């Protein structure tokens, strides 16, 4: 099974029944995989903060959910993560491409690579990095930690995980 399939399988194991997404090319295969699953309601959004708020609403409907986006999208919704999810202690589980890493040779991603983790630390948002296919099995633990900590939790997918070894 490919990495997208393995992540999808773990999300199903977590009981995820709703996904809201805006694609980045690293998370696109996972999004399409989830979109094809009729057990998960998939919502394509126009802006990443919509995904955050949709998942927050779903929480109160008793539905487990995930927001999928790229690193740039994560930067765009930090205000909403703070004023909705931190404000009310609403957990939201985000799967995000870790763009701007040393093997991501895209100039328009370099700021995301340098500043995203410090930004999450400033907000006190927990995160976990999945770098190897074997790490995918940690997703249920990450999901439970998100619920317990009652705040945004970012699960990063690295380039090596989604694209394999090799140069950018």
């Amino acid at each position: 099974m490919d990495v997208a399939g393995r992540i999808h399988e773990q999300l199903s194991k977590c009981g995820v029944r709703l996904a809201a997404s805006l694609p980045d090319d690293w998370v696109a295969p996972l999004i399409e995989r989830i979109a094809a699953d009729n057990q998960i309601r998939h919502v394509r959004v126009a802006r990443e903060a919509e995904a955050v708020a949709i998942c927050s609403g779903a929480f109160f409907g008793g539905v487990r959910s995930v927001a999928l986006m790229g690193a740039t999208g994560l930067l765009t919704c930090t205000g909403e993560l703070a004023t909705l999810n931190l404000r009310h202690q609403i957990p939201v589980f985000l799967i995000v491409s870790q763009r701007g890493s040393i093997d991501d040779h895209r100039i328009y991603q370099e700021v995301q690579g340098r500043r995203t983790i410090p930004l999450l630390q400033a907000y006190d948002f927990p995160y976990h990095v999945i770098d190897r296919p074997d790490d995918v099995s940690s997703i249920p633990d990450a999901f439970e930690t998100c619920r317990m900590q009652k705040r945004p939790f970012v699960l990063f997918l690295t380039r090596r995980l989604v694209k394999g070894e090799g140069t950018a």
Partner: protein
Amino acid sequence: MRAREAIELLARHRRDAVAVCALGMAANEWWAATKSEDSFYMHGAMGFAASFALGLALSLPQVPVWLINADGSLCMNLGCLLTEASQAAQNLKHFMVDNGVYQTVGALPVVNDGRTDYAAIARAAGFPHTHTIEALEELERQLPAILAEDGPVMTVLRVVPEKGFLRTPPMTYEGPEMKYRFGRALERRFGIEVFGPQGY
């Protein structure tokens, strides 16, 4: 039509609907009219009450979900209309109070100075039903038919702006307490599990 009158009228027709309110005037007036704990009052994320309401509506498809939105909030996230239209949640009613100003901060004008036709935007986005209502009597007359329509339905409530600040007090609880009161209210009403066995 004044905002308070329109919201009070909506409240009288609410029955079993669960409401999500945009922050500021919409939330404060809905609280004043209903004092309801099975309503969620946004305290931030301006523009995203619509998305929150959509997530709730998709998760509870048998429950009527009302969004009490306002023009300033909608302008922050017009893209939400595309998402709402695409999901076609039949249980979702979108009420949008259009007073042309940012009332909560002292009635400064909203962008585009009252020229925007929000119902036309919603219609163009793919909403199957849209309405614009300017008089209280008209709202009273049309509301039963609007509530009988399959969602998503956009109803623009054109109201006169108030002068200066509105002094309607906000709800008397906030933050985590609002989360737990709202979540527990939905658990009791619908027999769902929002919080796990250990309370989180």
